[in-house]
């Protein structure tokens, strides 16, 4: 299922996906992955380990805030949530993505040259 092209695509958009996911609720890393799998009907296969540098980098940039807390099962986990800066970043990336896909869509839907 997972063509290498999907991964290439993902590398630049993982940030956006994670931000979007966390915009619903604070989550730990595994929950973020599960949400992405669920929301995309498991069409995206992400190398799970790559999530952690991504999370920590966004924490460093101040887009995410992190706290240690407990899961429903009572296990200790690190929960991430969006900061105001993260929210701004998300909306910026979403509109850039939409602009990008629209542009590509325009190109692809144009008829052959006459």
């Amino acid at each position, binding site marked *: 299922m997972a063509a290498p092209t999907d991964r290439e695509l993902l590398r630049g958009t993982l940030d956006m996906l994670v931000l979007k996911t966390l915009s619903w609720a604070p989550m730990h890393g595994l929950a973020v992955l599960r949400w992405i799998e669920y929301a995309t009907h498991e069409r995206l296969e992400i190398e799970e380990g790559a999530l952690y540098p991504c999370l920590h980098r966004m924490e460093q940039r101040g887009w995410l805030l992190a706290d240690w807390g407990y899961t429903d099962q009572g296990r200790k*986990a690190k929960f991430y949530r969006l*900061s105001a800066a993260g929210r701004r970043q998300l909306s910026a990336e979403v509109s850039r993505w939409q602009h990008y896909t629209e542009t590509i869509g325009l190109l692809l839907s144009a008829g052959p040259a006459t």
Partner: protein
Amino acid sequence: MSRREEPSLMRRVFRLPESRARARRALDDELRFHLEGRIDELVAQGMSRHDAETEARRRFGDIESHRTATLAIDDQIIQEHRRMEFLGTLGRELRHAARSLARSRGFTTAAIVTLGLGIGAATAIFTMLDAVVLRPLAYPEADRLVELTSPVPKFKGDTLWGLARHEAYYFKDSSRVIEDIGVYQNTEVTVGGDGGDRPAERARAVQASAGLFRVLGITPLIGRNILLDDNRLDPPTALVLGYGYWQRRFGGDPSVVGRTIDIDGFPMTVVGVLPASAQLPDLQVDVWYPANTYPEQPAYNNHTWGAIARLRPGFTAADAQRELAPLTARLPDLFPTAEPPQFVEHTGFYTQVRPLRDVVVGEVMTRALWILFGSVLVVLFIAAANLSSLFLVRLDARRREIAVRAALGADRAHLGAQLLAESVLVALGAGLLGVVLAAVGLRVLLAIAPTSLPRLNEVHLGAAGIAFAAGGSLVVALVLGLLPLFGSSLLDLTLLRDGARGATMSRRRHVVRAALVVSQVALSLVLITAAGLMVRSFRNLRSVQPGFSADGVLAMTIAVPAQQYGRDYGKTSAFYEQLISRVEQLPGVVVAGVSEKIPLRGSNLCTGVNIQVPDSNDLVGDCPSTSLISPGYFEAMGIRIAGDPLTWSGMNQHDGRMIVSGAFADLHHWTTRDAIGHGMNFQGRDSWYRVSGVAGDVLADGFDKPPVSLVYFPMLPIAGGRLWGVPTEMNLVVRTKSGNAMALAPAITRIVSELEPAAATANATLMNTLVAKSMARRTFTMMLLGIAAAMALLLSVVGLYGVLSYVVGQRRGEIAIRMALGAQVAQVGRMVVGQSVRLAGLGVAIGVVAALASMHVLQSLLFGVKPTDPLLLGLSALLLIAVAVAAGWLPARRAASIDPAEALRSE
């Protein structure tokens, strides 16, 4: 869910991983949670545990590389946090300190002004020291430049002759240490007028060998330097202009190159213009022209040439000195006509090599500047001591606040940072003020500094001075800020409990402050003694009888063109006679005369003479300094004379009278009566002069030097008694009734140009000015030491006063009890003043010992007073004790005015 953007302090301290180890553990927890969660999930979906583990790892990817990448990011986070925290703490402490300083404006102002003065003074003197003593001369690779001279110890103690021209070529060819040698002579020339608006004028000239330009690394701005071929021509034809003179006289016109200009009546062609930086060491040169010197020139015994050599890289002046000793010893073999063995035997002649910088700056000047620098450092120390005393008092006042902070968990480092922040701010303000004060002070210093000080034109407040001010401020800030931390129980929490005065701590601080005051007094005593020694030296020098009387006497140089006058004694003498009689008719003039040399100006080269002992055929040779004079010179200069003076009629009739100085007579063990009647002539001439009088000794080399042995010949020689050259340049000396002799100069210049349009006048100066100039270095040093001493004294008084005021404040209760028990107001006052005097007395005692131990460094600057002069030490001690009484007086009055009832009630 709260949405705090910035984690709070507590969170940072307790929750966030702030060390690498903690970050690593947290990450491992996080990753483990992920993997275990995945495995549980897969097992729940029906996988075997083993397969689930394998699948979870597959999905995760390379654990180690993801972990490493994440840890690297965590490290950056930690570092950022630490930086932010440090900046935050620093900013907080600085803001806190700024607020607390702003609240106590009086303290802040006093602190900044006190320290600013100290730093300003130290920076100004450091800048001078740096520019004059520490920096190399302004030549390329100046540390390779040395001066060569010829001491003649057997002939005259510390006299230094120059080099003879042939020696320069010989040394250069034979030496492995010396790369090149340049020779030169300073002189003055008359630059001819152009018939238009530029009249004839005197200019400072240097006749130089081509080598001098190579040695000093001078490249011309326009045209060319002087070359060896120029040095072969006699008279010279090439002329090089100095930058300043080119600007002044020719308006910086480049087309002046190629123009022919009349120099001393000889036509010379301008071949080049030099850049502003091209100067002889410490001499602004107007024009440079070729000296007559070249390798094949016959050797002459003419040791009158200044010589500067450039050493090959890696060699020192001492190396050159060692190498030149055997080379000099061979001179009589190589040049028997110029330097015969008897000559070397008689003079003890050898070649001395000294670094050029040492020659330019001079040992006395170097010493004086170091002493001054030491003095201003002492002043800076005293200022810092006052400040640290102020800080201690302030600390006492704030000990509760500090105790509260300590109780709340601030550690020693934190409190240190707080104290440091205050002192850093004060030092910063003081440093800025100091730089401004130094800039102003330097401007004043340079304006009043004697022009005879070397390298003054190189003194600017630059990077070095500012770095010094910054460094000084920083050191003071550190000491001030951290001093209270040592030896004081700053974190003593008992302060909080009893809220009392924390007596032990206060006492300990008081001891520190008392020690500071004692050291201030001691250092002040040393500086005051030093300044006093300089003042006494100066007064001693001023009271010396120089053998002439300078008041109301004007001197100026008159030069007639050598071309027309240079061969005619009669014509030249007649010119001066006419000039003198015209000048004597000017209103206010008492008497006038001319002399080739005048005291305190000019060289003392000697001339060989033979002395004929009366009634015998014995001849004695000598080499005194000689001067050609006109009748009237002694009266004009105020030099006493025993015997018969020169007269106009006598001189014009060639009566052969001449005068010798007392020092010359003493040298030959003559009484005045013995002297008169001796014959004297120039070596190699037949006709004899007869000594007709003995002139009083003149301290022509300076008031602190022995009198010069001098013989005076009439400017019009007797037949067959020709001198060594017609005196075309003479000093006119005019004694006036009024004080304002300088006003005569324009009238005299007018008379000169009426008598001879091609003549030039120069150097119009009052003899009093020459006297002042001869003492200028000493005066300058004295003045600066005086300022330093006054600052030290003032700051010490402030320190003393501060401590006593504080003590009186602390002992209010005790004083009140004493007064309630019947102590008299006078007794209380005496107690306070007594304490002041005790502190000062201890300081004085230490200071006297320090002064006795250190004043010998002043020795070479003193005159007529011993460094350990007991009277002066006693006076300085008395002054400080008197000042201590005065400093104690105000606090004593305050103590005496304490109302016992009220003071005790407030306890």
